[in-house]
């Protein structure tokens, strides 16, 4: 069905109408008989793209399914998400990747792009079927053992070399297991010392980031640093990006999560597993460095690391509880709250255009101009949003934002010309 979006503020500037034809493409004139959306006062952005989502299907459908995760994504303004490979079974074959891709298509609310595992079973030793996953209908281009670090330098080198054949990218969970032990769960510092929680030192991330950018340089490949969390990593990235740009034969990109832009390690003082994430929440000085790096382009993208968990998986002692928090529905508001000075074109860059480019999703993150697929999110920019975890479309409630006030609200989401969210509510609900 064709669509007219009336009076939107395109990237926060000017006012325009957007026209969508029956094929879900933006066109330059109003189609006859089109459905209308009044977007006066709303900011129009390209649909958001998430480089880092855990959808839990297959294996933990009690925590999330591809359908429920897609619903949460649509409510958050997303039109594409990359589904991480640490499912049960692991997405490490063409068949597994294709199945995720098909379930995403059946859900039909966002583009669900599977991420393939780097190593078989996330074991860190043998390469997964990287080429077959790429050749499959799913067309996998991003590979990650997320949740675990590819810590063997030789395996990481081979993975980077191998994916060069088809322009793939390895997204690394940077955590040296010899520096952050198996129980590491709290930023190593005064608080972890006082609380007696196993420390997860920033250096455990930074040495892997440093190693991987050197391996990417050596192999002439692409490395993507998942969920950067420390100022030290930012320093390494700043150096690496300058060198990569000069050399022109390799590249390094990086993402930061919304929660690492706003929450600090102090929240762990009460041992609430809601705030247990990997990498852990860091002190304010790291948060400040991450904000600055996102604003100046050292960090390329915001990625949610949406990690839904069933309630009982969080109702353990802190060190035993599952890592992760949900984030798809609140990401835009958290970014706006953490970085109110970020311009709307910059928001579109870090949450849509650049993630789409990193993931190789050619029809996502494009400017809202005629000839592009109509992936659009419409945002009420100054709305005060009080988060209610029980209002979530996700199956899980591990929501750190419950009860908090955030700025900006996703009002409508359009995926390939189809309205998936209208007036803040799912259209399929």
């Amino acid at each position, binding site marked *: 069905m064709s669509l007219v979006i009336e009076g939107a503020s395109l990237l926060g500037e000017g006012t325009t109408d957007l026209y969508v034809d029956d094929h879900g493409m933006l066109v330059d004139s109003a189609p006859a008989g089109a459905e209308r959306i009044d977007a006066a006062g709303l900011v129009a952005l390209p649909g958001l793209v998430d480089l880092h989502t855990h959808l839990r299907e297959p294996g933990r459908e009690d925590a999330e399914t591809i359908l429920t995760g897609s619903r949460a994504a649509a409510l958050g303004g997303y039109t594409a998400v990359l589904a991480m490979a640490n499912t049960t079974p692991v997405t490490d074959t063409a068949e597994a990747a294709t199945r995720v891709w098909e379930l995403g298509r059946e859900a039909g609310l966002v583009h669900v792009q599977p991420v393939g595992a780097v190593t078989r079973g996330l074991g860190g030793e043998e390469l997964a079927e990287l080429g077959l996953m790429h050749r499959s209908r799913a067309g996998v281009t991003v590979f990650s053992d997320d949740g675990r670090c590819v810590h063997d330098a030789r395996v990481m080198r081979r993975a980077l070399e191998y994916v060069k054949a088809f322009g793939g990218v390895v997204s690394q969970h940077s955590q040296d297991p010899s520096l952050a032990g198996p129980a590491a769960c709290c930023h190593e510092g005064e608080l972890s010392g006082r609380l007696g929680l196993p420390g997860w030192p920033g250096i455990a991330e930074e040495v892997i980031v440093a190693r991987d950018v050197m391996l990417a340089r050596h192999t002439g490949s692409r490395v993507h640093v998942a969920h950067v969390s420390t100022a030290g990593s930012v320093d390494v990235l700043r150096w690496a990006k300058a060198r990569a740009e000069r050399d022109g034969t390799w590249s390094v990109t990086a993402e930061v999560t919304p929660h690492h832009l706003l929450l600090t390690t102090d929240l762990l003082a*009460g041992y609430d597993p809601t705030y247990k994430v990997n990498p852990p929440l860091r002190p304010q000085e790291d948060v400040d460095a991450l904000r600055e790096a996102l604003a100046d382009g050292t960090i390329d993208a915001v990625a949610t690391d949406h990690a839904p968990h069933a309630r009982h998986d969080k109702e353990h002692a802190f060190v035993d509880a599952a890592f992760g928090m949900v984030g798809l529905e609140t990401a835009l508001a958290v970014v706006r709250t953490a970085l109110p000075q970020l311009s709307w074109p910059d928001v579109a860059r870090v949450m849509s255009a650049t993630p789409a480019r990193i993931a190789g999703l050619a029809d996502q993150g494009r400017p809202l101009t005629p000839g592009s697929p109509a992936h659009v999110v419409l945002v009420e920019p100054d709305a005060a949003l009080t988060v209610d975890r029980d209002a979530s479309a996700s199956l899980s409630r591990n929501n750190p934002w419950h009860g908090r006030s955030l700025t900006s609200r996703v009002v409508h989401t359009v995926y390939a010309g189809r309205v998936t969210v209208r007036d803040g509510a799912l259209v399929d609900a």
Partner: protein
Amino acid sequence: MKHLLSVDDLSADAIQQLFETAADMHDVQRREVKKLPALRGRTVVNMFFEDSTRTRSSFEIAGKWLSADVINVSAKGSSTSKGESLRDTVLTVCAMGVDGLVIRHPASGAALQVSEWVDASVVNAGDGTHEHPTQALLDAYTLQRRLGSLEGRHVAIVGDLTHSRVFRSNIQCLTRLGARVTVVAPPTLMPSGVGAWSAAAGFDTSYDLDDVLRRDGGPDAVMMLRVQRERMTGAYFPSPREYTVGYGLTRDRLAVLGPDVPICHPGPMNRGLEIAADAADAAQSVVLEQVSSGLAVRMAVLYHLLAGESEGGMA
């Protein structure tokens, strides 16, 4: 006060009030019939998710001498190996009408988390590497009986600080009672961020045990900590021999201490590693006195938490 989760829950006055009750309980230990009716009709469950002999026995005897119905639940591994959450495990036990829950857990913060889920009074009997408040209370009680008062006294705490919940509770307890504390360990066994922490909490740090033992007349008491080799997954020190040379309370160091300086150890002791047999068995060693004090302190804690207003409990 409904729970005892941390020494931080107690003011100096509350600690002294507990010590006064503990002194009365100490007298019970010398009676022929070691029984008070204070907790008759109350049910206390000792729920231990981690092996323990002395602490569990101490709480069990304390509860029984106060006439509580005491049940021991060895819950080691139950919540994880059978797939049940900690919350479900403790709610199941507490649904049986439990008044007091004494919990030991290998995870830091577990007692605090449990206290948020259950109606029973919760006593933290050791949570991971976080706190062991009754151990700190019994240590301070023992030293106060020996030294008269802790105000202005200098206590050295020596050993594996990183993995010690005893140290974390003792820092709070001793400084709250006016003691000056120096903690001594190799840098690898100092907790992360100890510099900022010590500045805020008002204790000193040192890597040099001999300097601490000799400087300014030496400490008024020495508290040795067990080297928790079972928690050590990395290279914390080169060899047991090197540790003993640097940080053990050896015969030579014992000679430096005055004969009236109490030596504490929370047990179990690694004789020959952190403490020489000569020191462990010296007349000034209060190790066994700590055990009997522990019983008195735990009786006092259970009494104050569970006896209720009419029995003189803390509100």
